[in-house]
């Protein structure tokens, strides 16, 4: 450790200890649940032993002494000299808390004491050989083996009667985490501001990369930087770096579930209730800041569930319920929201009592539905418990939970059934998440659709289409499903812009099919929530920064379905009838297949009737067969180039008025001038070509002609 100051060493220890104490707490709860698993005991021993050693290295002897006490006790468990009992778990948890308090205390406050620290008093007694330090609990039954001269539990909370017993029979290792699965070993705690700086710099690097690409094009005549593997490798690596860096802002819900479980366990013990803890979807990730904002509310909800919801065992048995109650935390991501539900199978909320209390407070409850009455419990002073407890009956109530959640731009939902239990759902919008998405194109724009809402995709099939109740429907798995054009639903195209592949989305029981222009693929998308300034955007869940720096809009399928279904029903008699008139005809002339088809695709999606020709002479032949409203031509082509074609069109008696737009990789002023001299109406350099620019130019020419 040469070169590190004492302060730096202690800071490192504090980082290490935080992870180890979290792990220790989780393992202790696991131990209580499994009832003495050897592997878990060994893992606990390792954590405590390492903490002891590290604390000593950091010169924190008082911390080391506490860890030593814990280590002794765990060693007894490991050797089978002591059984795992709730009291022992209490003692170990209290010791863990004590360690946490000592480590987090400012250096000056963390006096090198043990028994004094246990009672909260300063004490000059040296740590080594000090009294037990597990605050309020006695490590009973092992005094003869202890080297602590102060003896057990000076504070009177000790429970006699623990006996040495054979080691309990081994049970399978715990499924979650496991003795070797402690995440603390692979976790480094990094200050948030450093992460934010890292993310900012990665963003700067990606931006600089884009500028280099433009520089190569503008200054070094590299038409397509992306065609060079080296440039592509850099793009790919920067993309991955940005993705990974962004993910560092997200943490799983499991980072706070240990403290929730601990709160449930301690309170249930204190109240003589038998409560099992169950958690699902704890790997659901959400923004670290949001989770921090929600943690107090979740603690309140689980404590509330134990205190108000869960009955005493005898009461449960009398009601025909299992003796042990269950509190479940279920986290999930649904579209643009993360839901964290706390459910109990306790007594539920008596809405009639809510009504009585509300009426006494002057609330007009006439005509309120049961659900509205339930929601009254989130008003200040409307607790339904018949007595005030020490735990959750004073002051802080669901109204505070509600306001805290709303501060995180979320909401609280309540469901409850008398005698069966209650569920409180905290629903927060996603500020950041990684979603598996289906990427599609519609109306000339690319969109992402969260994959968990995609039922299926299928190719366009004219025979599967029909109409019902004024709406277009398609047959999907032998069921008629209403279909809309995604572009139209998003306000980007006409209602009849149908004909592409179909994506069927679901929102609960509702299904809706959407025509898209193209299915692009599927991949993980780092979804960021939109600014509150544009929060009220229907059908949009958020957006993501693409590798090339562009922004991908992520759609919200439930919102999308609602928007499509609320759209005016259009009596679709036949596609032709609903069209505004004949589609403008565009002739695309280019010898490069890719460019030709790209232009065709863009123009057709925009509603144009597109024909193609591979050179000037073929273009003239096609124009002779049927004229066009716009000609879009390349310059470099075999047989007849674009200049010659333009000149020929201008010289032709019936074609002379057709607007001609040249689109070429020859971008010099001389070429541009030559094209205009030949009679072209516009000139677009392929290096600056983009879809919007092309459509804009074509529309402009059509408008100008009219």
């Amino acid at each position: 450790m040469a070169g590190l100051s004492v302060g730096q060493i202690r800071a490192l220890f504090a980082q290490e200890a935080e992870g180890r104490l979290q792990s220790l707490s989780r393992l202790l709860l696991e131990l209580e649940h499994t009832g003495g698993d050897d592997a878990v005991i060994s893992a606990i021993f390792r954590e405590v032993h390492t903490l002891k050693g590290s604390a000593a290295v950091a010169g924190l002897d008082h911390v080391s002494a506490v860890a030593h006490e814990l280590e002794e006790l765990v060693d007894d468990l490991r050797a089978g000299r002591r059984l795992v009992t709730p009291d022992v778990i209490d003692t170990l948890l209290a010791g863990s808390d004590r360690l946490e308090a000592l480590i987090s205390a400012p250096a000056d406050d963390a006096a090198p004491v043990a028994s004094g620290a246990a009672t909260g008093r300063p004490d000059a007694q040296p740590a080594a050989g000090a009294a037990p330090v597990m605050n309020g609990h006695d490590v009973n039954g092992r005094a003869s083996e202890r080297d602590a001269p102060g003896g057990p539990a000076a504070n009177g909370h000790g429970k006699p009667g623990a006996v040495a017993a054979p080691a309990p029979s081994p049970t399978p290792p715990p499924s979650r985490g496991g003795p070797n699965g402690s995440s603390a070993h692979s976790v480094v705690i990094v200050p948030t501001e450093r992460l934010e700086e890292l993310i900012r710099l990665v963003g700067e690097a990606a931006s600089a990369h884009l500028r280099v690409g433009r520089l190569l094009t503008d200054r070094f005549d590299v038409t397509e930087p992306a065609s060079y593997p080296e440039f592509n490798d850099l793009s790919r690596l920067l993309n991955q770096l940005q993705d990974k860096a962004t993910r560092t802002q997200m943490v799983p819900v499991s980072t706070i579930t240990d403290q929730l479980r601990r709160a449930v366990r301690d309170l249930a013990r204190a109240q003589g209730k038998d409560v099992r803890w169950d958690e699902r979807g704890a790997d659901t990730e959400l923004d670290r800041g949001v989770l921090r904002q929600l943690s107090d509310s979740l603690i309140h909800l689980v404590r509330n569930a134990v205190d108000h919801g869960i009955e005493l065992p005898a009461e449960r048995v009398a009601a025909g319920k299992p003796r042990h109650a269950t509190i479940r935390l279920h986290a999930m991501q649904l579209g643009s929201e993360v839901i964290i539900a706390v459910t109990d199978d306790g007594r539920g909320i008596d809405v009639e009592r809510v009504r009585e209390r509300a009426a006494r407070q002057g609330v007009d409850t006439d005509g309120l539905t049961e659900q509205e009455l339930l929601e009254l419990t989130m008003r200040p002073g409307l607790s339904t418990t018949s007595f005030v407890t020490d735990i959750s009956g004073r002051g802080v109530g669901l109204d505070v939970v509600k306001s805290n959640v709303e501060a995180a731009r979320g909401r609280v939902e309540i469901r409850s059934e008398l005698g069966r239990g209650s569920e409180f759902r905290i629903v927060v919008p996603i500020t950041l998440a990684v979603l598996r998405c289906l990427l599609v194109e519609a109306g000339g724009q690319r969109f992402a659709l969260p994959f968990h809402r995609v039922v299926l995709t299928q190719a366009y099939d004219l025979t599967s289409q029909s109409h019902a109740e004024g709406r277009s429907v398609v047959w999907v798995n032998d069921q008629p499903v209403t279909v809309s054009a995604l572009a139209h639903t998003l306000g980007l195209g006409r209602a009849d812009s149908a004909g592409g592949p179909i994506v069927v989305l679901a929102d609960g029981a509702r299904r809706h099919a959407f025509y898209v222009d193209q299915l692009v693929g599927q991949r993980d998308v780092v979804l960021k929530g939109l600014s509150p300034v544009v929060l009220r955007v229907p059908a949009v869940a958020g957006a993501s920064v693409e590798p090339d720096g562009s922004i991908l809009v992520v759609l919200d399928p439930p919102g999308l379905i609602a928007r499509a279904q609320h759209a005016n029903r259009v009596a679709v008699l036949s596609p032709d009838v609903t069209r505004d008139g004949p589609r403008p005809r565009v002739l695309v002339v280019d010898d490069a297949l890719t460019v030709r088809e790209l232009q065709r695709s863009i123009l057709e999606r925009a509603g144009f009737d597109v024909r193609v020709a591979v050179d000037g002479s073929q273009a003239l032949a096609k124009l002779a067969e049927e004229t066009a409203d716009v000609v879009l031509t390349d310059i470099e082509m075999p047989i007849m180039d674009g200049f010659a074609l333009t000149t020929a069109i201008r010289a032709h008696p019936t074609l002379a008025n057709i607007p001609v737009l040249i689109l070429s990789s020859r971008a010099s002023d001389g070429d541009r001038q030559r094209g205009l001299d030949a009679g072209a109406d516009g000139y677009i350099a392929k290096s600056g070509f983009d879809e919007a620019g092309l459509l804009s130019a074509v529309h402009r020419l059509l408008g100008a002609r009219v």
Partner: protein
Amino acid sequence: MTSVEAVLLPVGGDLYGLPMTWMREVVAVTAGSVTPLVTAPAVVLGLVNLRGEIVPLLDTAALLGVGTVPAPAFAAVLYTPYGPVGLAATGFPERAALDAPTGPSELPGTAGVFRVDRRVVVLLDPAVLIAPEHLGEPEPRARTSVSAGAG
């Protein structure tokens, strides 16, 4: 009278002042760098990528109810309680000190009329102008352009 340090935003033929205390940076934008935000209110021109941050770009003219910005060339990015927000400008914003106002302004979201050389500058009040409630409900885009050219 203390002068107000401001950034002057050309918006078509108009010139609007933004108090420096709100300014974060000015960035160039092109049509290709603004991603349209489907179903958004008409005042939202789209989203721009500001070094990995997704920033809404608002139509300054539409916010003021004086038409639309036809082709934004720059965005003045503001610090706001809602995170960074871009206001579209048609020309490069320059910095100036605004002395005593020459009179009151009429539009909601503005805070007086000032003179800079021979130009008229209307000072914006971003707290009012970009409040979410000021943005209105989502609606289809139907707009008329303000005349471009000044700035």
